[in-house]
């Protein structure tokens, strides 16, 4: 039987040639789909390519009109690139690696509107996880509320009850602990009651005094003395037991006293709780800035944290095997594992890219930029140099401005070091909505600074905006509300109109707005601090307007809390003191009785021993 079916070689060749022709015909489409799929996987939003063309002869890849949707705002493009022309190395393609020596990007625009939503029905698990992580951080972050609404000179403390106070709970616990400990100690002392032993000791001492040792003989005298010595030993043992109990009592009392020391802290917490019930505003400036601008700060930081996490995910340091979900197909996707190797090409490398970029108006960084990117790679450890993105502002024509952006992602080795520095002057700053004042401020042209440094798991830095000649507007809802009376100071204290009017009057006269958001902590969830002249000014105005009233009401709140909590706290202290005094006295009495009996008995033994004619061992 023939092993090879020679007549099939021709049809096979025809099949292979057909496959090659089909591959050639659909290569560009396959590249488009690959870019769209990989891009969507990374970004977490739609990536669309109008056309792609790979020229194997020239080793060039041309991509037309690439749109990357903003995952946070699906109807806006994060970036829209008119044309990318890249010089691609051909041999690494056989290793499934894309090595781009240079790329020229023309017509890059940021923040452009989209015709249709860029949201994905099923975002990649990685982007979902990172988005969930950032959203979790935002929801965990506690932005203090500045709620003037409900503030009133008539303080309603009806909801404040003894059961709702931590001081009362703690005091009750302490009192009950004191009682139960005292009871247990009393029982222990009863078990160690030495009266019977002391009576026997007295009897033994009398016997020792009255005994005629000569008449008892050597054996009788020895037995009597042995009994006396045993009694001394038992007295010592009982005394040691009482001493041990005394130590237990002491440590128990120490614990109670320690717990009692936290009563003032509990009281402070109760003051805060009571304040929250009656909407007393805090008038400290550092408190007001987060309340006024905290949500805004979180909103601005969320995308930065997301992109930093994304960079960590897709530009990992080291050469360990990397896992990713397998390709989408009818069969199970499985896991695709990549095995980077030293002195070989990474899966993706863009050595140098240059772009002429425009950020659409309306954003904080809008304008025209000349940008370069170097060393963007999926395996920074193989490339050995950090990824650098730099952009220099080229001015917008109508508003001369300057600025620069420098992003360095050093993932060559652990710990990763990222830094983002941006300094832009004369840029169009976005407006700020201030619901507390029922207002919106248009910042106009101003200064923007971003300075973030991430080292390993630590993130530190700040964002700042500064604008002069700002314009204040009433928000629509505030205009719709009946504020006419409030403007003349007629709105009742504690109403929403009164609160909005108060803050509006304080802020709307400001000509300059300065906001600084400080970030520090874990890269996955840093803490933030907000400082602004808006917060300072609002606090000053509030203090002027209602400071005296707030202080007076705060005192009333404290008094109300004290009235409820004090009896319980005092009772707890009394119980502890009583336990200390009663049990302490009992213990000391027992110790003294036992010690005296032991000393007397030992003296009697010595006297008896001296009376003996011979020494008895």
């Amino acid at each position, binding site marked *: *039987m023939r092993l090879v079916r020679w007549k099939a070689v021709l049809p096979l060749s025809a099949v292979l040639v057909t496959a090659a022709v089909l591959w050639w015909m659909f290569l560009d489409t396959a590249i488009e789909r690959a870019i769209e799929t990989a891009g969507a996987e990374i970004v977490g939003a739609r990536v669309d390519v109008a056309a792609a063309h790979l020229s194997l002869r020239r080793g060039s890849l041309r991509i037309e009109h690439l749109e990357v949707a903003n995952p946070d705002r699906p109807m806006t493009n994060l970036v829209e690139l008119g044309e990318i022309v890249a010089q691609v190395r051909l041999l690494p393609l056989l290793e499934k690696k894309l090595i781009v020596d240079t790329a020229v990007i023309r017509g890059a625009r940021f923040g452009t509107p989209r015709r249709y939503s860029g949201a994905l029905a099923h975002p990649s698990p990685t982007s979902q996880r990172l988005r969930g992580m950032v959203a979790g951080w935002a929801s965990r972050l506690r932005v203090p509320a500045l709620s003037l609404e409900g503030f009133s000179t008539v303080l309603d403390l009806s909801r404040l009850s003894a059961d709702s106070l931590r001081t009362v709970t703690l005091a009750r616990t302490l009192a009950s602990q004191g009682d139960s400990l005292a009871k247990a100690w009393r029982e222990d002392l009863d078990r160690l009651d030495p009266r019977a032993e002391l009576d026997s000791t007295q009897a033994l001492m009398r016997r020792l005094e009255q005994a005629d040792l000569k008449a008892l003989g050597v054996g009788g005298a020895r037995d009597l003395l042995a009994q006396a010595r045993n009694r001394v030993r038992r007295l010592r043992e009982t005394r040691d037991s009482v001493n041990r109990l005394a130590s237990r009592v002491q440590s128990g009392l120490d614990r109670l006293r320690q717990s009692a020391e936290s009563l003032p802290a509990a009281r402070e917490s109760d003051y805060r709780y009571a304040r929250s019930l009656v909407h007393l505003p805090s008038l400290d400036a550092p408190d007001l800035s987060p309340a006024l601008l905290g949500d805004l700060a979180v909103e601005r930081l969320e995308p930065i944290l997301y992109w930093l996490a994304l960079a960590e995910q897709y530009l990992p340091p080291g050469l360990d*095997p990397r*896992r990713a979900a*397998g390709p989408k197909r009818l*069969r199970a996707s499985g896991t695709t594992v990549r095995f980077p*190797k030293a002195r*070989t090409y990474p899966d993706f490398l863009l050595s140098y890219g240059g772009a002429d970029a425009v950020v659409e108006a309306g954003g904080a960084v809008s304008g025209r930029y000349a940008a370069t990117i170097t060393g963007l790679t999926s395996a920074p450890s193989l490339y050995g140099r950090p990824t650098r993105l730099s952009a220099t502002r080229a001015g917008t024509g109508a508003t001369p401005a300057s600025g620069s952006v420098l992003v360095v992602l050093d993932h060559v080795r652990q710990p990763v070091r990222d830094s983002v520095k941006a300094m832009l002057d004369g840029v169009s700053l976005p407006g700020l909505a201030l619901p507390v004042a029922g207002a919106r401020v248009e910042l106009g042209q101003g200064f923007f600074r971003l300075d973030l440094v991430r080292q390993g798991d630590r993130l530190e830095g700040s964002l700042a905006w500064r604008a002069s000649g700002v314009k204040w507007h009433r928000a629509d809802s505030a205009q719709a509300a009946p504020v006419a009376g409030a403007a003349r100071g007629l709105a009742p204290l504690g109403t929403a109109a009164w609160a909005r009017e108060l803050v509006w009057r304080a802020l709307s006269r400001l000509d300059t707005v300065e906001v600084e958001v400080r970030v520090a902590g874990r890269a996955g969830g840093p803490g933030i601090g907000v400082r602004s002249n808006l917060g300072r000014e609002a606090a000053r105005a509030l203090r002027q307007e209602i400071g005296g009233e707030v202080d007076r009401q705060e005192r009333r709140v404290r008094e109300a809390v004290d009235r409820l909590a004090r009896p319980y706290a005092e009772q707890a202290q009394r119980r502890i003191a009583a336990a200390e005094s009663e049990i302490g006295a009992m213990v000391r009495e027992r110790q003294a009785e036992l010690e005296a009996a032991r000393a007397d008995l030992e003296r009697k033994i010595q006297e008896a021993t001296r009376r003996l004619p011979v020494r008895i061992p």
Partner: protein
Amino acid sequence: MLFALKLLQQTVRTLNSEGTPTQVAAGLALGSALGLTPLMNLHNLAVLALIMVTNVSVPGAMLGWALAVPVGFALDPLFDLIGRRLLLETPALIPLWTALYNLPVAPLTNFNNTVVLGSIVAWLLFALPMFFAARWAVVRYRASLYPRLARTRIFQVITASKLYNAYRLFRPE
């Protein structure tokens, strides 16, 4: 459509001139690779070329493919497990995978996917037992089952139909 079917029938008939149990079994074993492993991968192009060029039963390969497809879907979790064990949980093999991954063409086979690698390894392990079992079964079929089937009415109806044209390829010479 009819023309395409006729052409296919003709091509199959031409390619499958000898349908011995060994050829059918070899075809089944090779064809099962197409069904057990994810189809759109480079190794399956090689398997397809083998089916066409070597003198195995093409209908046997098609049958093996058809039978193995549902088995492949059902066993994907097992293949994933095998692939995961080999690719990620066997440190001794990592240098091998790393070297392969950085060779030309090898990464295009997607060997670094757990389901692909797991299914290929499973197929390689079962190909020989499958071959011998199929050969034994075909021999038994042709010796005992076929003569009885040939006398049944349904079989006679089928043999009169177009479908039988394809079935003839399995018929004993």
